[in-house]
């Protein structure tokens, strides 16, 4: 997938009250290889945008195009393929499994594609200061630690686009900068596009474009 094009997307909840925005109601091209930062206040629809692109919600008007294919027309099987090979996401609410350990959460995702080796996964845990938490049940970990695990999980699959929804909201600067450099390496290696959202603090990357919702 080389391009995600948002054509006049407006969430249904907005109705007629559309504020000035560089995303909603506009035509926006997200191109592979670029880095985008979406900054906005809370409640302006950052997570909605991620849900629309990831196919979790369809309560919007307009069209989302994956290259020349309309996302609204994909069936279950095609969505699975997109989620396994083209688009990765780190949910704002993380959507991890508290019953499993941190490592198992990552392996559960990685085993679908076998994209990373066990060694590579452990290396990522190590870089993010989670080596001692690797076998801890996720439910016993702090939100910041869970966010780092979710970040690792989002890297454990092939992708052309990665959406990170407020990835550093509970993470200290030191870890945030490690995440930035890990992400930069991954993006460069894959030639992928990143879209991160933020309400203030954000991952430090050399963004090609900063958009406001």
């Amino acid at each position, binding site marked *: 997938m080389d391009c995600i094009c948002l054509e006049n997307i407006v969430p249904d909840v907005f109705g007629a009250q559309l504020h000035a925005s560089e995303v909603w109601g506009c035509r926006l091209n997200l191109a592979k290889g670029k880095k985008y930062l979406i900054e906005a206040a809370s409640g302006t629809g950052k997570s909605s945008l991620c849900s629309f692109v990831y196919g*979790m919600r369809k309560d919007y008007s307009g069209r989302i195009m994956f290259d020349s294919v309309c996302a609204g027309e994909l069936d*279950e099987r095609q969505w699975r393929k997109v*989620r*396994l090979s083209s688009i990765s996401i780190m949910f704002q609410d993380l*959507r991890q499994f508290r*019953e499993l350990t941190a490592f198992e959460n990552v392996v*559960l*995702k990685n085993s*679908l*594609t076998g994209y990373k080796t066990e060694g590579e996964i452990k290396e990522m845990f190590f870089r993010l200061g989670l080596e001692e938490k690797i076998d801890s049940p996720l439910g016993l970990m702090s939100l910041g630690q869970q966010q780092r695990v979710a970040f690792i999980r989002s890297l454990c699959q092939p992708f052309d686009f990665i959406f990170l929804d407020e990835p550093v909201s509970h993470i200290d600067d030191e870890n945030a900068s490690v995440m930035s450099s890990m992400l930069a390496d991954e993006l460069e290696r894959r030639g992928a596009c990143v879209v991160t959202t933020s309400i203030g603090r954000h991952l430090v990357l050399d963004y090609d474009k900063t958009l406001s919702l």
Partner: protein
Amino acid sequence: MKLLWKLLRHHISIARFAGFSLASIIGLVIVFASIQFYCDVAPLFSGKDSLAGKEFIVISKDVDTFRSLSDGVESFCRQEIDEIRAQDFVSDVGCFTASSFEVYARIGLRADGLAMSTDLFFESVPDKFVDVESSRWEYTPGSRMIPIVLPRNYLDLYNFGFAQARNLPQLSEELISMLGINVEISGNGKEDAYQGVIVGFSDRLNTILVPESFMEYANKEYGKGNDTGVSRLIVELDKPADERVAAYFSGKGYSVSGNGDANSKMKFFLCVAVGAVAFVGLVITLLAFYILVLSIYLLIEKNIEKLRNLLLIGYSPMAVSVPYIVLVCMVNLISVVLAVPVAFLLRSIYIGLLAPLFTDVAGEAVVWIPAVILFVLLTLMNSAVILCKIYRIRA
């Protein structure tokens, strides 16, 4: 798969599944035992009989004292036979032909010459009423072999009366069929020796049957020449339970015997009783199945957020269904595997109870057939329900 199981096994209630298993085992045991019971007992009511499998009766005219004192046997005339044939509950009528010659039979039992011998008589009915392989039930004039069908109770008389009283060996049907009978036929100034071959037994007819072709030949050869007339008729019925049957024949003053429908009635009642019991078992099994479906629904509902997240990170509905399908497979398997020995236990109990009444209870052990069928069927239905439910979760 291990991780999926670790994730999805939460909320599994052992008590609920134990409840299901118990209900299911009760239902399955009833189904299995009734099917096995039917297979064991039904053959007792349908012992192989050499006379036509259809329902028939034998009718004769009542024997009264005056007739006994006068000229012998009352026989049916052509007109009476046609009238019986014309009744709409009668599908066929055959005449008994009696022998008009003398028969003397001898069975050698021991090498030392001990033998039984007796005066006998032969009768014949049209071949179509005799259910013996046609190649064994034929006689070519001049041959010295006569196929014979014996009443089974003659053998019982010998085995349980004569043999015990005289300390002689009891004979099985197979053995006596192999032994054969030496038959001497005389009359009309001739006397010849024949070899009788027992080709079958009958519970329903109290006479010694030979093929019609032999009877014709022998009556001509050794007979006194006078037509003995038809004293008994074999009547094949459409519906033996038809109440007009008894009314018609008693109205005519005919006596009815060889009534084979007692067994068929028994078999019918057996069918109904076993069917009703099996039905109850099946209903219990289906209710248990319903409990299992509800348990699985509850389990899926409790884990729905996890399932949705699994689907979101790229798991297929099929993949996340597998743990549940394996679960019901195991639970069903446990139920069936526990139900089968219980059914066999019940079988040994009723066989013990029936043994004094019947010599040869027990057909083949067939429980495993319904066991496999029900296991596959229940598991397939469970799996379909699970897949439907999971496919309905929107990622």
